[in-house]
């Protein structure tokens, strides 16, 4: 694939060191799902439109379908399966932010990125802020209201 020979790439995934031997331009999404069997990140479009494959690379949210694995060599990757997402998961359950569940992993990871950003910047988390932060994540079930409510509840540490 991609002409280049398979190469070893080492990076952490959810805090654990992992090594994948694959083509340098293999998509991070495929490496996570197929080589590492972490299937929580989903492929909805394969071109960075839907956000269902969102993961964090060194704390920055990216579409893992657009990132070649060679770019994460030595980096820290965080996925929906990882630690530190308990409050976000709880909020999505309590507020009805997950319906069919296919966009949910991306929504949860993006919510976490937004919460971290709010904290770093010392900004109060608002519904408007969540709406902007989640603008790149598509959902066809919810009409977004309950997703925004979930994100805000997670960020404010409240859920019903």
């Amino acid at each position, binding site marked *: 694939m991609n002409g280049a020979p398979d190469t070893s790439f080492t990076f952490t995934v959810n805090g654990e060191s992992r090594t994948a031997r694959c083509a340098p331009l293999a998509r991070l999404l495929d490496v996570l799902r197929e080589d590492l069997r972490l299937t929580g990140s989903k*492929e909805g479009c394969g071109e960075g439109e839907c956000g269902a494959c969102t993961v964090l690379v060194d704390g920055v949210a990216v579409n893992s379908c657009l990132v070649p694995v060679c770019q994460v060599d030595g980096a820290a990757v965080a996925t929906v399966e990882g630690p530190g997402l308990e409050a976000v998961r709880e909020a999505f359950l309590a507020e009805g932010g997950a*319906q069919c*569940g296919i966009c949910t992993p991306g929504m949860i990871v993006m919510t976490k990125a937004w919460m971290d950003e709010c904290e770093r910047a010392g900004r109060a988390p608002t519904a408007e802020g969540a709406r902007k932060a989640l603008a790149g994540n598509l959902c066809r*079930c*919810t009409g977004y209201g309950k*997703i925004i409510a979930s994100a805000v509840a997670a960020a404010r540490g409240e859920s019903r």
Partner: protein
Amino acid sequence: MERTVGTDIRRPEGPDKVSGRAVFVADLATPGAWFGGTVRSDVPRGELLGVDLDPAFDWDRVRLAGPAEVPGANVVAMINEDMPVLAEREVRHVGQPLLLVAAPDAETLGAALAAARPRIAPLPAVLDMEDAPDVLHEILIEKGDAPSALARAARIIEGTYRTDTQEQMYIEPQGVIAWPPDASGCTVVRGSMQCPFYVHKSLVTMLGTRADAVRVIQVETGGGFGGKEDYPSVLACHAVLLARAAGVPVRMIYDRHEDLAVTPKRHPSRVRHRTSVADDGTLLAMDIDVLLDGGAYTTLSPVVLSRACIHAAGAYRCDHVRIRGRVVRTDHVPYGAFRGFGAPQVCFAVERQMDRIAGALALHPAELRRKNMLRVGDTTATGQRLETSVGSVEVMERVLARSRFDRHAWRSAGVAREPHDSQGARKRTGVGFSFFFHGAGFTGSGEELLKARVRVELDQGGRAVVETASTEFGQGTIAMFTALAADALGAAPEDIRIAAADTSRVPNSGPTVASRTCMVVGGCVMKACAELRARMSAASGDESGPFADRARAFLAGGGDGLAEVVYASPPGLVWDEEHYRGDAYPAYGWAADVAEVEVDLDTFEVRVTRFLSTVDVGKAIQPQLVEGQIEGGSLQAIGFAHLEVVTTEGGRFLQDRMATCIIPGTLDTPPIEVELVEVPFPHGPAGAKGVGELPMDGGAPAVASAIEDALGIHVDHIPATPERLLDAWLRAHPEEAL
């Protein structure tokens, strides 16, 4: 006793969905599986002469399956058996499957597909539904004598309304995995689907085999909205042929491009209204002509047309109604099911016609609706007398009270506006309204013919297992059944388990479509649970203590822990299929929407700034889930109104990637304010009717009405794109043309 119904329990499957553990079809581990792909037609119509296999490719690396490999009938069995699994000679649409390829890996599959070249002699294609000579299905509904009433009418108001197609855009593309026949000869398919027994039926027909030689299992399904009602049958037939050819499991999981290019979407429509109306706004006669583009094969079109025709006169009282509906065959990719199933198209037309009438009579749109709305005791276009659970007045008055739309000076097209450049900002705002209903369950005698079956069984651990074919794909089927079963058994939600939709394990409760899962199947679940509870109660005479303990004691005492229920329609329903007369649905959901918009006069971009919906669903079994249905359905309707563009050229969908096939994101979405009204349906479980499709019907006409209010131009064709609005604006303001 209601303990769980009406409260919000958490989705039982939710923890898996929020942690990445939920297993969708693409997530299934299938060691040794091959990858399946499809060689397709690139023309809308022609004669297939053959598929050339490039000798430069080593064809021993792959396995092929063509029409000759179909063991039974080469048809995808649906309503009619006119669509082949694989084309033999006649090619009817772009993307039509011609030959199947399985390969050990994706790269080899891609190379093989590129090396297979169909030879098709093109024929002239029918791509305009107005010119299509071939009628797939037609329906005539007559109430009173509309032609005579119109012939003597003093005033006839006419309008023609069009809706383009719309893509379901479930975020998980279609996919199934098929296994070659096992030692007992059984073929197993797992996949993303709404209707496992539809897939089962099509496989039994294609394989020419026994019902118990096919097993279909739904796995976690990432959205459907009707799009996974019929197409999974096609995909499963293909995957099964390849699994048989390759002798290994075959994964057929579309990427987004393939999904958008070849799967069915909403039927495009053209609806003409001719309405006779009295000076005070009373509807005297309605003549309605409905035309749908069915695409190349019958698929579900007759049933879509049926729902369209029954809803075409809207939620209004009128003594003289004539509705003529046709769905025609064209050489487009077959159109199919999408939430609402024909009703959103005709609801757009009748609601816009009501606004046109309001404008012509200088009546307020809300006043015109109040005067004509169906109430208890009125009859619908099919002559159905509405006896019970009619929330029409409640939803209308509640949404008007919340929005104050009846005090808003709505302006129809043609009413003079202030000069737009005197406002400073080159933006206009508007408010629009819609009022609508949606029949729950299958049309007419559909439920009687289907006879949904449901089982509830106590397991050894003392839990009640609910066995149905109804699928969860986001709506909340699992939580809703759990709540109904818990209350009917006098148990807690933890005492209930909902069985997976596996055709070898569950009875056929019918497809998960038509807003029927709660009202019809949920009702059966409650009945079966009530029967079990009565047995347990009769055996012990005691309902104290944990349910699981009582259930285990009941089984230990030799009690029969299995209850099966077959659906029975509410008494007194009469339907005449031949004349389309009578009780079309057991019950209707009712709703009214208000939309507020802002339109930019330079770009003609529409922004929906606020959306209100008041809805009567009978009883909200799980209020949070019902709100989720209404919010999500309303947003799909808003997208249908102005944002979601799918066009065809030469029979090909031009928007065949997510980057071009737009759906609303968070920034396109207004606050959606939902209010639930409960006017119970005595024959529904805990009073519930349907909710799934209803919110798809009214959003588009409400947004179009708001755009008309803002701009003073008719909005009769959706999506109301900036290009369409600019054209209409320049027709109304020729002095502004460059």
